[in-house]
């Protein structure tokens, strides 16, 4: 019985991680994540020398010490100091992000994109927030997968040259998707359990405290002060949703509820608390739980060309 349990376990493990999967969802995610990478780093251009050089606000001595002076907290910004060199590398990084988004040399630009994200983040430690963590998390797993198999310049070039199309299903696509999913569950689990330490999440006042923060505010939500019970309900529902996401995202019955709530919560945070970038990237992360066919159907409803139509073209 013990052995049969183990054989079932191995079978389930293999099925979970190593079945082959359609890459379509990952290809769509590549475009959505790529756009955010371009935006995030394009915005850095405005203050490149302020945040990434010793003449700026974060001296390398400070950020290196944050990494315990370890080589593993690496960044190309620690090796070069000349503004000309830094601007040139910044230009190259932006080009790589554009190529990754368009799906050009995707396997290479995926890895390079991830390395650039880590390099920027390690140097600017002290000015980072959830967006940077999510950018790195998503790009790392997308770089593992053949996410340039469709909706990419790579596939267009292959067709133009009369070469066989890249396989649309692969085991790596499944490994990457599963890693995206499990890692996202870990993120929500800790975001939720961390909130359990805060009395305001239990008392239901946390949503008011978010709306009452002037420095985060982008849309005035203080009119909600007249609906305290509704704010209580939103706070408590957000807490339950975040704590239970890691379990309830897997059954098909509860998945739409989890994803629907994720979209509402992140869109709400994005719009009202001035973190549209963070809200956007969290919604994109939830795409990992969209089946390829479901996503095709959804895009079909948006009147976008499907892969079959693209192939026909």
């Amino acid at each position, binding site marked *: 019985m013990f052995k*049969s349990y183990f054989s079932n376990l191995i079978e389930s493990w293999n099925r979970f991680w190593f079945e082959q999967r359609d890459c379509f969802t990952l290809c769509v995610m590549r475009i959505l994540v790529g756009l955010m990478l371009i935006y995030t780093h394009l915005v850095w251009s405005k203050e490149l020398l302020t945040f990434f050089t010793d003449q700026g*606000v974060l001296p390398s001595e400070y950020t290196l010490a944050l990494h315990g002076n370890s080589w*593993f907290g690496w960044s190309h910004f620690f090796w070069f100091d000349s503004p000309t060199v830094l601007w040139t590398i910044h230009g190259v990084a932006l080009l790589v992000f554009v190529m990754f988004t368009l799906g050009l040399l995707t396997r290479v630009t995926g890895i390079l994109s991830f390395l650039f994200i880590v390099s920027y983040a390690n140097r600017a430690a002290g000015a980072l927030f959830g967006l940077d963590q999510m950018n790195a998390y998503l790009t790392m797993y997308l770089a593992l997968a053949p996410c340039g198999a469709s909706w990419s310049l790579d596939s267009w070039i292959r067709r133009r040259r009369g070469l066989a199309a890249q396989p649309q299903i692969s085991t790596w696509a499944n490994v990457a998707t599963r890693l995206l999913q499990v890692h996202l569950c*870990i993120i929500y689990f800790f*975001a939720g359990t961390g909130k359990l330490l805060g009395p305001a*999440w239990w008392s239901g006042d946390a949503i008011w405290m978010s709306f*009452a923060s002037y420095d*985060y505010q982008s849309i005035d939500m203080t009119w909600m002060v007249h609906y305290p019970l509704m704010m209580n309900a939103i706070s408590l529902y957000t807490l339950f949703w975040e704590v239970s996401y890691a379990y309830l995202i897997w059954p098909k019955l509860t998945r739409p509820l989890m994803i629907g709530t994720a979209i509402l919560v992140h869109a709400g945070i994005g719009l009202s608390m001035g973190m549209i970038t963070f809200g956007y990237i969290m919604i994109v992360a939830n795409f990992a739980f969209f089946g*390829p066919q479901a996503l095709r159907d959804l895009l079909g409803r948006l009147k976008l060309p499907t892969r*079959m139509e693209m192939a026909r073209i």
Partner: protein
Amino acid sequence: MSPSKSRSDVRKAAEQPIKPASVGGDCHDVPSWQPRTRLIVSLLIVFHLFAVFVAPMSNPPPSSQLFNRLSSLFSPYLQALFLNHGYRFFAPEPGPSHLVRYEIYSTETEQPGEFPEYNGIFPDRRKHWPRLIYHRWFMLSETVFAENSLIPSEEDFTGRIQQIEEDLQRLRNDGESGRADWLDAQLRRELELIEYSRKQQQRLLEAIAQHLLRVHEGRRIKLYLCERQLAPMIDVIQGKRLDDPLYFNSNFEFYLGSTLRDDSE
């Protein structure tokens, strides 16, 4: 079930080819991975996901000694892949925000009743645009607050040292040298951490100060850490605005220091 049969079942399960999942669109015939490849990738996945799990278990505090030790083992991997995060977004609960206010002077020496040439604050939503840049400055001011909160006040620090020295003396008098050594080691670690935090704060504040002096072409700068309290519901019902000075007054202001412009660079 006989043991030999069940052992072969386990081997069969491990070596079974994986059938393609139910996928949308056209499927190509792609060979699935060999058992050895699956085993290697499985080990890598377990290692990776355990590392991802260790990071938020050990950071931020409170955290267990077990996961703190595990975290230092996984630290190179977590650092290299930028995975060392706690993921505690808006936890434990949304709180007051922290801003850095600064005064720029054109003279090097302080004059009685002097007025600053320039008064500034960061983050500043009128100046820092787009919103993502505003957020970068916001995170920087929160980092200044976090570094500052790690350093105890002179009074607390002296009191704590005195208390520990008394405890050490008492333990040594009672012949409990083992416990005394342990407490001594703890104290040294604590002192090292405070010294590290002081150095880090100095580096950060000096860099910020020099940058602002260059930008505003000043000779001397004073930095203050400010806190904006969250408006209580009752105040907002009575018509107070979130940016009312009541929530952002000098009671919540902490003087960080003053410095002169360094022209050596």
